[in-house]
C-alpha cells in the first residue's frame, strides 16, 4: 500500500500549518532574540518598536501569567529571558503585529543592553567546571578494571562527532486561536502535542483542558519538533491568551537555525581491549555530551548513548560513563537515533583503531564480536540477536570477497583516486527508555454507514505512520482500506500522548488501534451471532463479509454495523496499550528497557579524488532486519532516507559555532545537506525476514531510527580510502568528514601561525 497522503502531496493539496486559512483578525508574532551567547540583560528598549505601525503589543517575561518555564525533563528553561541570556538566539521579547512584516520590522527596532558573561562552547570545558545538566551516569558489566590484564591488545583514543541541523523543510510554527470560555485551539507543527499543551498550560497558568493542540502533519520533524516545538506554541498561546485574538508565528529559516537546538555534538574517549584471538574483552568509554544551555531532552539522550555504548557487539566487561555538559549553545535536542549514533561512532572508532594497530581489516574484529542471542547488554537485557544472520546474508548476497577484490584492484591501478570499503552492523533498541512513556491510546469510531474514523496520538511527519495505522484498522476489521480515515492528532481526542518518537509510534499507536478495533469486532460478532442465530465462535468477519463456519451469509459489514447500531451496541472504542515486559531500574542501571532490537548490516564503498579531496559514495548495500514488514514501500523509504541523512551527518553537514557561541553555518547556503547528486549511486536493501514473534505491530519491526546508523559506514569507508592513498595519514576520528578534512588527511599540513580575518569576507559568505 502506498502512503495515503502521497496523492495530496504531489498535487500540493496537503495542508501544513502555514496553509490553514487564516481566521479574520489574525495577528502575527516574531521573537526578539539574544544576539549574544551569555550575558546579563541591563536594559531592554521596546519603545521605538512599540510605536511601529501595526504593532499591537510586545510581550516579555513580565506578561507571563503562569510560570516562565518550558523545560520538559528539568525545569531549567525560561520561555522568555528574564535577567540573563544563556544562548545566542534565546527569545527575549515577542512582538505581535497586524502583519508579519510589521512584526519583523518592529523586532529590528528593539535594542537590548547586555553585559557579557563568560561563554563555554566546549563540553569538556563545561565538565571540568562542573557545569552539568544532571549527575553523570555509568553503565557497567563484568569487571573492566581486572579485564585489562587479560587483554593481549589495548588501544585508547578519542572520537568526536559534530551536531546536526534537522533541516525539516517546513520551519517551526504555531497558530493559536481563541475559543469561548478562555479556551485556545492551537495548531502546531509538533511531534509532541501533549508536551506542547502542557508547556503552554504551564506558561499561561491554566489547566490543560483549556487548551487543545491539533496537528495536521509535519513538513519533517526528525526529532527537531519534539520538545523544540513547545516555545512557539507557548508564545502564540501567551499572546492569544492576553489579546483574545488569533496569533500565528512561522519562523524564518534563519531564525529557526539560530534559535533551535540540534543533534548533540559529542566528544568521547575510548579504551578497548582484545585477547589474542581478537575477542573484545573490555571496553571503557566516556562521553561528553554538548547539551547546550538547558536540559531539553539531553538527559534522555545521554541515557540512550549509554544503552548503545557497545553497538552491535557483545563485550563481557564494560564501563560506559556519560556527562551531559551545560554550554552556551541553543539547547540541543532529539534527532533520529537519539544519542545512539554518537555512541556507535565511538565504538566503531575504537575497533578501527585496534584494527589499524594490528594491521588487519576492521571487519575481522567486527564480525568476530557480533552479539548472539542470550548475550547480555551492559544494562542487563538479554539479546535476541539477528546480527550474525544479517552479517552473513550481506556477505554472501553481495559477494563481499568480489567487492573487496574490486576495491583492491582499483586502488592498485589508480593513483589519483582511491576506494574504501567498510562494514556497519547496527543494533538499536526499540521503546522509550523512560518506561512510562511506552503507552498509547486510540479512538475508533465506526459510523453507521460502515465508514471508520481513527484517532491516535501519532503524528504524521512523513514516516507513513498514518498509512500503517489505517492498515491496522482495515486489516483488523477486514474491510477495504478506503472505508478508513485518519483524523488529525488532537489532544481533545487523545489525551496524554507520548511524542511521535523513538521509532515506536507505529508500534504503540498501532497496537492501541488494534485493541480498539478488536473490541468493536468482538461486539459485532456477538450481534452477528444473534442475528444469524449461530454460536459466536462460528462467526468470522472477512473481506467485508460475515462468514459462519467459513460460509458466506446474507450479512455483510455494512448490514452488520447497521444492525449493531439499531440494537444500541457501541460502535466506538477508546483503547489503551502499554508495552508489556519493559522495565528499567535507574538505581542499578539494569533492566529490560526495550521491547526488542532491530539489527542490520551495511557495506559501504566510497571513492575519493586524491587531487581535490572530494568524494562520492558508490554503494551502500544493506541487509536489514524488518521482522515482517507490513509496508515494504514505506519501510524502504525510511531506510533510504535514514541512510542518506546518516551520510550527511558523517560527511558534508558541518555545524560551525564560533568561540562566541554564534552559529556561523546558519543558512542553507552555509549548512549543506545531501542533494540528489551526493547520494550513493546505489542503495541496495534486502530484507532479513524473520517469523519470530516480537512486540512490533503485526511483527513489522520499527524502522525510523535504526537505518540512520548505516550512514556511519561512509565515514569509515572514506577513512579506509584515505589510508589507501596515504597509509601514514595521521587522521583521527572526527566527524563529519568534509572535503576539507579529507584533503588535509591526504596531505597533512604543518600547523600555521596567526590567522588573519577581514570581517567583510565573512559577511559575504552569507554568515550574517
Amino acid at each position, binding site marked *: 500500500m502506498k502512503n495515503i497522503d502521497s496523492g495530496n502531496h504531489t498535487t500540493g493539496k496537503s495542508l501544513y500549518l502555514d496553509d490553514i486559512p487564516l481566521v479574520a483578525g489574525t495577528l502575527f508574532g516574531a521573537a526578539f532574540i539574544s544576539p549574544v551567547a551569555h550575558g546579563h540583560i541591563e536594559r531592554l528598549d521596546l519603545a521605538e518598536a512599540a510605536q511601529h505601525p501595526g504593532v499591537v503589543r510586545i510581550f516579555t517575561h513580565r506578561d507571563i501569567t503562569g510560570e516562565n518555564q518550558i523545560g520538559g525533563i528539568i525545569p531549567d528553561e525560561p520561555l522568555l529571558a528574564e535577567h540573563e541570556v544563556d544562548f545566542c538566539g534565546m527569545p527575549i521579547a515577542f512582538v505581535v503585529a497586524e502583519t508579519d512584516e510589521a512584526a519583523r520590522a518592529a523586532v529590528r527596532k528593539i535594542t537590548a543592553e547586555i553585559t557579557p558573561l563568560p561563554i563555554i562552547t566546549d563540553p569538556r570545558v563545561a565538565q571540568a567546571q562542573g557545569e552539568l545538566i544532571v549527575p553523570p551516569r555509568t553503565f557497567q558489566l563484568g569487571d573492566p578494571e581486572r579485564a585489562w590484564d587479560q587483554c593481549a591488545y589495548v588501544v585508547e583514543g578519542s572520537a568526536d562527532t559534530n551536531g546536526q541541523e534537522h533541516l525539516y523543510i517546513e520551519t517551526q510554527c504555531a497558530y493559536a486561536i481563541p475559543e469561548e470560555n478562555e479556551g485556545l485551539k492551537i495548531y502546531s507543527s509538533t511531534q509532541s502535542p501533549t508536551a506542547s499543551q502542557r508547556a503552554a498550560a504551564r506558561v499561561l497558568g491554566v489547566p490543560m483542558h483549556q487548551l487543545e493542540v491539533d496537528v495536521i502533519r509535519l513538513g519533517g520533524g526528525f526529532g527537531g519538533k519534539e520538545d523544540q516545538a513547545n516555545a512557539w506554541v507557548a508564545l502564540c498561546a501567551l499572546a492569544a491568551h492576553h489579546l483574545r485574538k488569533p496569533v500565528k508565528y512561522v519562523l524564518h*529559516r534563519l531564525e529557526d537555525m539560530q534559535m533551535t537546538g540540534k543533534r548533540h555534538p559529542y566528544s568521547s574517549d575510548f579504551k578497548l581491549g582484545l585477547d589474542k584471538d581478537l575477542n573484545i574483552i573490555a571496553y571503557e568509554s566516556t562521553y561528553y555530551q554538548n547539551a547546550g544551555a538547558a536540559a531539553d531532552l539531553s538527559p534522555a539522550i545521554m541515557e540512550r548513548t549509554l544503552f548503545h555504548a557497545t553497538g552491535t557487539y557483545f563485550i563481557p566487561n564494560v564501563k560506559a560513563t556519560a556527562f551531559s555538559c551545560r554550554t552556551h549553545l541553543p539547547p540541543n535536542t532529539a534527532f533520529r537515533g537519539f544519542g545512539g549514533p554518537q555512541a556507535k561512532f565511538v565504538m566503531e572508532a575504537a575497533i578501527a583503531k585496534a584494527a589499524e594497530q594490528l594491521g588487519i581489516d576492521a571487519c575481522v574484529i567486527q564480525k568476530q564480536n557480533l552479539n548472539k542471542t542470550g548475550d547480555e547488554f551492559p544494562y542487563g537485557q538479554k539479546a535476541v540477536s539477528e546480527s550474525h544472520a544479517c552479517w552473513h546474508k550481506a556477505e554472501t548476497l553481495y559477494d563481499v570477497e568480489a567487492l573487496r577484490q574490486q576495491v583492491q584492484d582499483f586502488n592498485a591501478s589508480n593513483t589519483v583516486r582511491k576506494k574504501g570499503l567498510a562494514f556497519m552492523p547496527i543494533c538499536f533498541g526499540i521503546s522509550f527508555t523512560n518506561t512510562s512513556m511506552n503507552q498509547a491510546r486510540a479512538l475508533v469510531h465506526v459510523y453507521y454507514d460502515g465508514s471508520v474514523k481513527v484517532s491516535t496520538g501519532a503524528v504524521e511527519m512523513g514516516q507513513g505512520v498514518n498509512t500503517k495505522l489505517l492498515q491496522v484498522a482495515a486489516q483488523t476489521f477486514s474491510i477495504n482500506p478506503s472505508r478508513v480515515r485518519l483524523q488529525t492528532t488532537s489532544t481533545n481526542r487523545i489525551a496524554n500522548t507520548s511524542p511521535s518518537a523513538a521509532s515506536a509510534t507505529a508500534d504503540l499507536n498501532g497496537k492501541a488501534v488494534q485493541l480498539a478495533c478488536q473490541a468493536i469486532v468482538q461486539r459485532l460478532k456477538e450481534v452477528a451471532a444473534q442475528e444469524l442465530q449461530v454460536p459466536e465462535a462460528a462467526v468470522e468477519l472477512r473481506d467485508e463479509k460475515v462468514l459462519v463456519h467459513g460460509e458466506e451469509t446474507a450479512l455483510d459489514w455494512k448490514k452488520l454495523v447497521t444492525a449493531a447500531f439499531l440494537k444500541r451496541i457501541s460502535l466506538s472504542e477508546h483503547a489503551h496499550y502499554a508495552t508489556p515486559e519493559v522495565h528499567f531500574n535507574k538505581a542499578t542501571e539494569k533492566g529490560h528497557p526495550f521491547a526488542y532490537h532491530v539489527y542490520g548490516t551495511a557495506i559501504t564503498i566510497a571513492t575519493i579524488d586524491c587531487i581535490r579531496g572530494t568524494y562520492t559514495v558508490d554503494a551502500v548495500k544493506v541487509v536489514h532486519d524488518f521482522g515482517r514488514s507490513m509496508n515494504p514501500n514505506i519501510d524502504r523509504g525510511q531506510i533510504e532516507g535514514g541512510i542518506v541523512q546518516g551520510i550527511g551527518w558523517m560527511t558534508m553537514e558541518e555545524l560551525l559555532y564560533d568561540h562566541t557561541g554564534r552559529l556561523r553555518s546558519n543558512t542553507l547556503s552555509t549548512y549543506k545537506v545531501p542533494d540528489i547528486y551526493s547520494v550513493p549511486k546505489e542503495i541496495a536493501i534486502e530484507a532479513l525476514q524473520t517469523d519470530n514473534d516480537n512486540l512490533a505491530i503485526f511483527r513489522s519491526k520499527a524502522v525510523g531510527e535504526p537505518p540512520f546508523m548505516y550512514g556511519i559506514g561512509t565515514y569509515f569507508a572514506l577513512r579506509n580510502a584515505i589510508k589507501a592513498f596515504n597509509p601514514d595519514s595521521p587522521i583521527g576520528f572526527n566527524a563529519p568528514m568534509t572535503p576539507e578534512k579529507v584533503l588535509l588527511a591526504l596531505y597533512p599540513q604543518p600547523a600555521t601561525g596567526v590567522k588573519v580575518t577581514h570581517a567583510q569576507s565573512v559577511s559575504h559568505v552569507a554568515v550574517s
Partner: protein
Amino acid sequence: MIKFILNDREVSTALPPGTVLLDYIRYEKNLTGTKIGCREGDCGACTVLVGDSCHDRLRYRSFTSCLTPLGNVQGKHVVTVEGINTEGLNPIQQAMVDESATQCGFCTPGFVMSLAGFCLSDKLPTQQNAIAAIDGNICRCTGYKSIERAAARVAQLLEDRNGTEPAEFVAQQQILPRYFASIKERLHALAATASPNGHASAQEVQRVGGGTDLYVQKHTEMVETANHFLLDKSDLQGITREGNRCVIGGAATVTDLAESAVMQEFFPEFRPYLRLVSSTPIRNMATVAGNFVNASPIGDLTIMFLALDATLTLSDGHTSREIPLRQFYQGYKLLAKTPDETIASIRFALPDERTQFNFEKVSKRTHLDIASVNSACCLSTRGDLITAASVSAGGVGPTPMFLAKTSAFLTGKAISEELVQEAAELAQTEISPISDARGTETYKRLLLSQLLKAHFLTLFPHLSPQELLQ
C-alpha cells in the same frame, strides 16, 4: 500594474513590482501548494515555472519563486502546482506516487514542478536529464533514490515526443492540462496589452537582474525600493559571435550561456562546468553580469571570465565605456563602476585551437553550493611551450582574483611537473585566504595548490600525478 498569466488565468496586480512572486502566490492568491522552505533559493520548495515567448517558441524555465520579483514575470506565464493538476493525478504526480517518492510531502510540489519543467523543455528525455531538472530541490526525508526512480518514469513519458513542441506534446498526451496548448497565443495577446517594465528614475534605483543574490542579501529592502528590472530588456539579450569574439548580453542568464550555440561550438566543455554553478532554477534566473556585479570573491562565472580576460561594456544610458573584468574589482565588493552604470555586454576572445580552458571548483557539496576555492585556467601552447597563460582563483582573497604573477611565470615556459609545482608555490604569495564557514586558511591554501595541479593534470594527461602530487 503587473500583468501575467497565472496558471490558466490572466492576473494583474498593483503590488510593488519588487514583491516576491512566492508571497503573491501564497498570500494574495491563496495558492498554498507552493511552499516556503528557505527564502534563499537553496531548497526548491517554492519552485514554479515561468513561460515566455522566445524567438516565437514557447519556453518554460523553473524559477525559485522566493527570489523572483513580480517585475520579472511581467507578461509571462507563471505555473504553480495548482496549474498542472488534472482530474486525478497527472502522470508526473503518478510517477512520484508509484515510486513512493514523497514522505513528509513538503518539498514534493517543488520536485513535481521541476519535473514538469523538464517535460516542457526540449532536453532529451533521459533519466539523467530529468534528474538534472531537480538538482535545485532538496528533500530531507526520502534519500532521493525513490525520486530518481520517479524521474526515470517521467523521462519515459516523453519518449515519443520526436519533434513536437514540448508544450503541445504534454497537452496532447495529457501529461499536463490541455490549456498549455493555448498559452502561446495568449502570451502574444497579453504582450499587445501589457506595457513593458517602466524606466524608474535614475536616482536611488536598485538595478535587478535575476535577483538571485539581491533577494537573499536584502530581501526586505528589495520589496520597498524602486527597482529597475533588467532581465527582460530586449537590448541586453543574446549571446552572439562577432569575429573571433563572443558577445554576451547584460541580461543573458547562466542557462542562456549553457545553451548558447556559440559557446557550444567553441567551448564544448563549458556546459559541464556550469553544472557546478548553483542549480537549474537559479541558473535560469541569474545573469552572467549579475555574477560580476555581485563581486563575490568566489563567484564562479567571475572566476571563469577572469581567466578568459573578458571585457565589460558599461553604460549609464547615455554613454558607454569598456573596462577589462580584471580591473573591475578594487576591493571587497568595491567596483570600478559608477552607480548609474550597468553592464551592457561582456566580450571575450573565443579560444583558438591552441588554447585550452579548465575550471575547477571544490565545495562541501559538489552541486548547489558555494565554492571553498575555485579556479580557472586558460592556456595557449605550442608543443610543450606555454605561449600564454591566465589563471584566476576565488575564495582566496577579498575579491575574485586574476593571479597575475602566476600567469606571467607560466608564460613562455615548458610544461613539466616541476613547473606546475613552482607555479603552485608562487600562487601562494599572491593570495590571502581567511578562515570562514567555507574552510580554514590552511585548507584554502592547500586546495588552491591542488586545483592548480588539477588544471594541468586535466589539460595535459601525460603529466605524472605521482610526481605532481608529491
